[in-house]
């Protein structure tokens, strides 16, 4: 992998997290491919990709759009006061992909903090991004969020870890 491509991939991951932290959700959704999926499996990294186990979230573009539309509503009661979030990312690691294919897979350990009023929620885990390189730029085919404690009794998680 040439350094330039690697730089481009890593910048994309950082850019994606920055859009979420800035709550630029429409721009964030535009980063997904048409068949893009956002997935937070209930067994975290141990979960096979076979649909036999549930997830905290498993959303296509339609459901992600629903989530984003809802957040814009003044009647989204749980957003009074509103939530904010911050993603803290480690350097991503390229686990798959070479210069001849348009597909890449990256792993990025993270810490995610979501605050609302007096409450603070912290989640940790590892992202697995599957990206496709297309004429219009990189797009997310899969953002898999493997939490360290996905099976724990969790309070409401309102934004996008």
């Amino acid at each position, binding site marked *: 992998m040439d350094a330039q491509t690697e730089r481009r991939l890593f910048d994309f991951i950082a850019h994606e997290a920055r859009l979420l932290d800035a709550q630029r959700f429409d721009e964030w959704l535009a980063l997904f491919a048409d068949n893009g999926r956002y997935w937070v499996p209930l067994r975290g990294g141990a979960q096979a990709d076979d649909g036999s186990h549930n997830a*905290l979230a498993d959303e296509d573009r339609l459901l992600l759009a629903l989530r984003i539309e*809802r957040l814009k*509503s003044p009647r989204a009661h749980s957003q009074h006061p509103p939530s904010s979030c911050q993603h803290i990312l480690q350097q991503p690691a390229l686990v798959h992909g070479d210069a001849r294919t348009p597909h890449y897979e990256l792993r990025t350990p993270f810490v995610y903090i979501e605050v609302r009023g007096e409450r603070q929620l912290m989640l940790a885990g590892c992202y697995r991004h599957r990206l496709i390189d297309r004429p219009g730029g990189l797009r997310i085919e899969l953002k898999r969020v493997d939490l360290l404690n996905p099976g724990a009794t969790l*309070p*409401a998680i309102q934004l996008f870890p």
Partner: protein
Amino acid sequence: MTRFRRRADIAALVQDDRVHRDVYLNEELFALEQQHFFANTWSYLGHASQVPAAGDYLAVEIAGRPLLMVRQGDGGIRVLYNRCAHKGSKLVSDDCGSTGKFFRCPYHAWTYRLDGAPLAIPLKSGYEGTRLKDCESGRGMVALKHVVAYRDFVFVKIGDAGPDFESYFGDALGAIDNLVDRSPVGRLRIEGGVLRNVIHCNWKMYLENINDTVHPMSTHESATQAANALWQGQPADAPKPMAMEQILPFGAGYDFFDRMGGRIYPNGHSVLGINFSIHSGYAQMRDYEQALSDAHGVERAAEILQRSPQNSVCFPSLALKGSPQAFRVIRPLAADRTLIEAWSLRVEGAPALLFERSMTYNRLVFSPMSVVAHDDVHLFENMQEGLRGEGNDWVSLHRGFDPAEFGQTTLEVNGTNEILMRNQFRAWVKFMTLSMQD
């Protein structure tokens, strides 16, 4: 401080048509619930499919007591206190697993058979001439006396007071029958994991909301409006994605919820949506209907499938949905903290689509990342805080109150009637005070 020592002190908290805010806020009442209410009522513990083989166990805490459901060598199920007879160490500390042929305490290696009987202890000679054999510590793990596995749903009653299983649930068990009979072979399996939420509100508040049909329009407005906005413009016959099929009906109006109807049973149980519900519109499957008719006869199969209640409450811990095959368990942790578990069921002998519906519904509606539940949770926590305000000590349950409702055991009403909640509180008083002095 002991404010609630006598029966009359408890009874005064629940009037005909309203309840005192202390029932949600007061820590002493919570302690009394642990001691009396949950000892006198039947609580859901777990599903037999979670312990398929001998030695398999499920560890659950009910009303502060650590319990173990264990599959026996003869295929039966026992429930033991998860406590070593020696010093009290929990025998297992995982949520579930297999203990093999016996339990072995990690502390001093005392061992027990699967039924809790003592098997061996190290340094046995050191106990010669002592009274160990004649006391509780020598008798092994303590088994619960009142355990019933009704069609694989395992319930326990901790104390000896209170009614037996059949008299406690009575006709309310029809909700479990409806769920299990959806399988042509009469069997369900828990699969796909559990979604666990901790909500900072009293457990009774959560339970009331399961019977509340007036909140969806205002509480879930943001989610249903977003869903409608995304779905509008689609042709009427466009196939709805499963998520849309499940979310859009939350936006139904007051009239829809009123007409769905409700039924109360003695001891706090109820069914909401006896005529239809937001789950009635899910696409049917011909092959599956045929398989059910072959198994149960055409008439019973139609009865099972036409009945898709919004929620059936087996008071106080279980809320079932016949379709999508899913249920919630209410586990109180403190006066202001409640654990809610949402479980998915695979219906044996039925198409995989049913299981997909179960998991999708739980994920969309009961996940900590749900788009629907965020507003519920926010409002439960708001109420828990708001009730601390002075000036009004009472919570209103007046809607639909009719003095003639007293003395009725089973009663059918309109779907927005708060009698489903009044019924719960009347049962709450009954089982709180059943084993109290005076």
